[in-house]
């Protein structure tokens, strides 16, 4: 009888000790913020374009962390979806065309002769990439522009163009070598067609 009581006592003491340790650890090593949101945010392209329906990349990252679909980011495209799928350990899915389609990288250009200096685009730019003042010509700082498209809509004189980034010797990429699909000799043969029409 006494051994049972002793066992209970020992277990109770152990539980108390571990409880204290765990309680201390919970306070001492408390994780500030949500690290998964930061990780997701780091993968998003940071164009802050709002095509996903959120007012910026971070809100979408928070949305994804809360269980939203990962295929709502057209600027990131399939690459970003794949990376998100890997991070979150879910299946990769194709881009949701409801939110837009993957496009070549574009940069905003202001046709400076036509600009009336209304500052509307400056207010719209999420990364402060447009320079100008009231009734002064505006221009886009090309290096800062994320190509988010948000300045095009507010322009009252439609003087902003989204132009694809030109390929120069500086941003040129080596092309992918042709893939060899002829693994075995029969691969090279024309396909047999059952009903030639």
């Amino acid at each position, binding site marked *: 009888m006494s051994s049972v009581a002793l066992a209970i006592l020992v277990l109770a003491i152990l539980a108390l000790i571990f409880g204290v340790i765990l309680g201390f650890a919970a306070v001492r090593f408390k994780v500030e913020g949500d690290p998964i949101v930061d990780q997701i945010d780091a993968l998003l392209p940071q164009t802050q374009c709002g095509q996903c329906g959120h007012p910026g990349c971070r809100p979408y990252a928070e949305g994804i962390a809360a269980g939203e679909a990962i295929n709502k980011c057209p600027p990131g495209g399939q690459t970003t979806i794949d990376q998100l799928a890997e991070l979150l350990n879910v299946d990769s899915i194709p881009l949701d065309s409801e939110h837009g389609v993957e496009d070549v990288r574009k940069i905003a250009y202001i046709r400076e002769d036509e600009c009336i200096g209304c500052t509307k685009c400056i207010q719209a730019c999420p990364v402060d990439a447009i320079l100008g003042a009231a009734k002064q010509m505006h221009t886009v700082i090309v290096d800062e522009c*994320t190509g988010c498209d948000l300045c095009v809509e507010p322009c009252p004189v439609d003087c902003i163009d989204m132009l694809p980034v030109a390929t120069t010797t500086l941003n040129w*990429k080596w092309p992918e070598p042709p893939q060899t699909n002829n693994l075995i000799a029969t691969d090279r043969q024309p396909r047999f067609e059952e009903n030639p029409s």
Partner: protein
Amino acid sequence: MKVFSFHGGIHPPENKKQSTRASVRTMPIPKSLVIPTQQHLGLAADPVVSVGDKVLKGQIIAEPVGRISASLHAPTSGTVTAIEAQPVPHASGLTAECIVIESDGLDQWIEHQAIDYKGIERSALVNQIRQMGIAGMGGAGFPTDVKLNLGSDHIVTTLIINAAECEPYITADDMLMREHASEILEGIKIIQHLLEPTHTLIGIEDNKPNAIRALNEALAETDIDVDLVVVPTKYPSGGERQLIQLLTGVEVPSGKIPADIGIVVQNVGTAQALHRAINHGEPLIQRIVTVTGEAVEHPGNFWTLIGTPFSELLSAADLKPGAMHRLVMGGPMMGVAAETDSIPVIKTTNCLIAATDSEMPEAPAAQPCIRCGMCEQACPAQLLPQQLYWFAKGKEFEKAKNHNLFDCIECGACAYVCPSSIPLVQFYRFTKSEIRAEELEQRKADHARERFEARQARLEREAIEKAERRKARAAEAAKAQAERKKQSSSETAQDDTAALKTAAAVARTKLKKAEIALKNAQDKGLDGVETLQATVDKLKQAATEAEQALQNSSTTEAVQSTPTKSEPKEAKPDLKALKQQVSIMRTKLKKAEAAEEKDESEIEALKSRLEEASKAHTDADNALIELAQSAGIDLKQLRIDVAMAKVAITKIERAISKSDDETEQEALKTDLESAKSHFAQLESQLKPYE
């Protein structure tokens, strides 16, 4: 000297004999020179000449931008005819900014002189090298001044002069050593002066006996402390890291540069260019280019001005018509094919191969990898080419990176030995550029995030500041209001008239009420009539007293104000007040008349008061008119004139807004101006009598 060895390597056919038979020839000055602004690693140089400028040979035409950049000089005298995009020697075949110079054939030098490099400051010497546009001539084109100005955190123990020239076909360095060995040694002296290495080595492959002899002869003639090390011929012993390993046995760690382990490697061509720049004051405007291949009749080496089109070089080596199947810039292992022969020679162009069909046939179709492992045996960087190939093919860039893809020097040894003829290097180049692009994107994204967050923070801060400002303004307004109230109340206390007026009015009202009550009581024969009568009497007295007090104060005020104020001015407020009173009386009367229960006596009283008020007003008005008459002004007429002028202005204004014709508008505007001035004049006349 002990010679070490490095892993892997291959022994391709050398094909060097063809171009070393003749001595170096000098290219005639071409009619037009195309100088790309990007000939080196780092940022492109910024043109400092404009179209139409006359330039002299050796004149600076583009200045370096940023730390890693090199300046450009006019290779000959002539005129700048264009600064535009032209085809440049680049794997992409794209165009880039070039300065085009039309030569005048005079080849006139700009004033230049040698520098006593031992007698000037280190920084001045480094700056001079930068000004002379010296960039590595071995292939990469790294700006030499940066390599020679390492700062105090790098102590250089070993200086290696790269004379290996391991790639087949190329003999530019070989010929340079044969003909200008002493100049190379002079250049090495300059490098030694700057870096102060404990020992200097020249690494040369044993397939260049003539060059070795020339160097030995030159070494015997000068007192320079240099060891000439002959290494066995093996490709790629001329690679920077491979040569270091050959000569010192030390391997440069992954991701580090040779300077991190106290070694600096310079090409022989660079050393010779340094000598010309410092000891003769000649900037880097020419170099030796090997023109070889089976498609040229007389392969050889040429002293070529930077900017000379390939076509001129090919014709100087007598290109066989129709024979050229491929034109390769650089060597057969690491070079890239040129799409056009209008591409110019730049600082890093060491070789042109005009190859025939049989010499460089189309690469056979790639076969599947059979995992033979020969590529691993050949890799001089000790990588796993096969593994990297799988990663590249599967686009698993992260894994490729983790397998040290960036240590690959793209020498092509793996592809050379591959029995399946897989273009391995192309896969590595593709993967590298994809990873670089991704990293750039990531950096851009991080930058954009930073800017976005900064903007959000700014907007938030501005909103808070705005709210605070509004709050502060509201508080200030409330404070001001309270102050005003306090002041006005004290003013009334000071100003007896207003208080007295109120008191009198209150007394009057009380009296009236009491009188009504008394009347009622008397009519109905109620008790307490006496007390009421007493109250009424008391109130009557109080009212009279109040009236008296008010009268007194107003008279004193009038007395006080009379001597200070002129008569018309004093009349002004009176007149206005009287007018107001008349209108008030009129309204009251109308109300009383309109009321359902008409109190005849009240109406009568009001009527009489109205009459009084209007009389007072007319009297005052008449007094004014009389006063004006005394000054010679017909006040009535004046008033009519003012009203007429006002009407005229409104009319003209309306006409202006209606009219479309500009000239008409202009005319009307001048009319308006004159009407306005007329009105202002009349009004100023009227003003004292209002």
